[in-house]
């Protein structure tokens, strides 16, 4: 039985079949990987490009970055502050969820794209205070509609920047490469 199978597998047809099987396995895996990298569906197709292009500062909508750990998502009433003056808001199908939320007082959920795991205690404030700009980590928001994560935010990525910025300052390097700075 096994011998027969091997015989078949080494025949020309068999070779093609094996090749197809291997290829389809790989492409399935690749598709799976690709799927995990797709941006999740968001309630509103928010265009960062447009808003940043209008000259709105990042910190206007995400002010928490200046104060504490989390930059925060803007409250819907903040969106409303501007949008109520825009006629299109009431008619646009894309903005319907916001209008509804404002009417009913019930919010909707976003899927965050730039995330660290729960065992990493990332705080925005010191990073902003150290003179980092938003685009250093989050990419150029004038180029994207829905925010995408421009890089894999893993430990090596954090560390490379920490080391670079602390180069030459031993005390700073100790602090910035200490496990307890992020993990506790």
């Amino acid at each position: 039985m096994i011998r027969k199978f091997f015989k078949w597998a080494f025949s020309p047809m068999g070779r093609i079949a094996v090749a197809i099987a291997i290829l389809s396995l790989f492409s399935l895996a690749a598709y799976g990987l690709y799927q995990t990298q797709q941006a999740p569906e968001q309630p509103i197709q928010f265009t960062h490009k447009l808003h940043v292009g209008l000259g709105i500062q990042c910190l206007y909508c995400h002010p928490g970055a200046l104060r504490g750990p989390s930059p925060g998502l803007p409250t819907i009433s903040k969106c409303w502050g501007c949008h109520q003056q825009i006629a299109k808001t009431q008619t646009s199908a894309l903005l319907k969820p916001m209008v509804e939320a404002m009417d009913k007082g019930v919010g909707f959920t976003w899927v965050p794209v730039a995330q660290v795991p729960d065992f990493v205690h990332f705080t925005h404030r010191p990073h902003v205070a150290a003179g980092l700009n938003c685009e250093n980590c989050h990419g150029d928001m004038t180029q994207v509609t829905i925010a995408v994560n421009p890089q894999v935010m893993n430990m090596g990525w954090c560390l490379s920047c920490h080391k670079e910025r602390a180069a030459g300052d031993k005390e700073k390097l100790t602090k910035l490469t200490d496990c307890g700075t992020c993990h506790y």
Partner: protein
Amino acid sequence: MAVLSKYLPGAKKAREDHFEKDDPRQYLMHDPIPRGQMNEMVMESMHATSWKFWMVFGILSVLVAVCFFYAWGYMIAEGLWVAGVMRPAYWGIFLVNTVFWIGISHAGTFISAILRVFKAEFRRPFTRAAELMTTFGLIQAGASIFMHLGRVWLSYWMFPLPNQRELWPNFHSPLMWDLLAITTYVLGSTMYLYLPLIPDLAMARDRSTGWRKTFYRILALGFRGTEGEWRHLHTAMNFFAFAIIPVMFSVHTIVSWDFAMAMRPGWSSSVFGPYFVLGALHSGMGAVAIVLFIMRYTMKHMDYFIRKEHFDALGKLMMMVSFTYAYFIFNDYIIQWYGGNLATDNLLHWLEEGPMSWMFYQMILFNIVIPFAVLWIPKVRQTPWLLAVVGLLINIGMYWERYIIIPVMLTINNMPFTWKLYEPRIEIYLTIGTFALFLLFYMAASRLIPLIPVWEVQEGQMAHTMRKIGKANVSTISDFE
């Protein structure tokens, strides 16, 4: 070609009393049979399976499936709470099993490498059996280590793999040394099992058909038995025999450092290295005795290969190891007692009169007193079942020894408020599972590869001759190397 000459075991007595009656054919080396016939015997021993074999095989398979795989899977899914480990005995039977199996594994290397290096001729028929114990024992030891991890799925972090985190494993940790030593030992001993197996696999290949032929053909690596191949094989075996000896000693020394390097009463002892090595040999020898007994009485034709003389020689070896072990155990405890550390004193009291003291006394009884008392007697040494019983007792004693060192000694520490006694829970099943898996491997191996190194026996039989020197009948060996 040097000619070595030595008395046969027991020959002196025979010479004096029953000079003529002592038939040299009772010794395997002087009882040669034609090579073809011997090969057939070995092949037959592999082929012959009775319903008893399959019944035992089936029971063991079920045990392995339930007690090993299911129980382990359950523990991974549920967390370690299903085991009995707790504060302060954070390590339990899993580590006991690890140390125990590593100890068992030492016998193989010792018998095949050290005895080979020292040219102890009685080793010839059972080197293979002992080496198999090394490899299979190490598998159980490794599995037990992984069982005890809280998050076994992340155990690859212990290997020095490059990663984006820029983190390496901690080479200061005795566990890291352990991992490296055991890995080295597994690789080394597997190679060392495999090399002497090649001629026998080639023999088997030439004498089988069907899937077995394919199996042996692949494993025999095209060995044909030419002069050059034999020379290379001997070189390689010699090389490994010498290389594996320090590895063997270092492995158990390093395993002992898991304990000796720790800051705990009872553990922090500098004699632990050699003490553990000797302990390993002690249990290993006992295990070999049991395996030989089982082989002789369950497998076909084995009564030809495994004879009284082998049990006798093994018994002597066990006795010697037992002497040395007694010295080390005395040394270890006397020094700890003499140290006068308060926590250690508490620990010794605990061993002496705590609820687990029965285990301590049994350990002394099985490991020292019984071997001392009975192995002097040639009748005991030469009766296979008696020696197997002694081997079994030694193994129980050695298991107790590891149990005392790990969970029982962990009970007592510097913080008396936390002293608590460990009770094994799922560990019992997993222990049964590892034993069953070991036996299952062994049973499978006994039907797949020749348990007798045929070529070694044949080589020995060719080298041995009886010569008459003066009035004495003397066995002589020609050394081919």
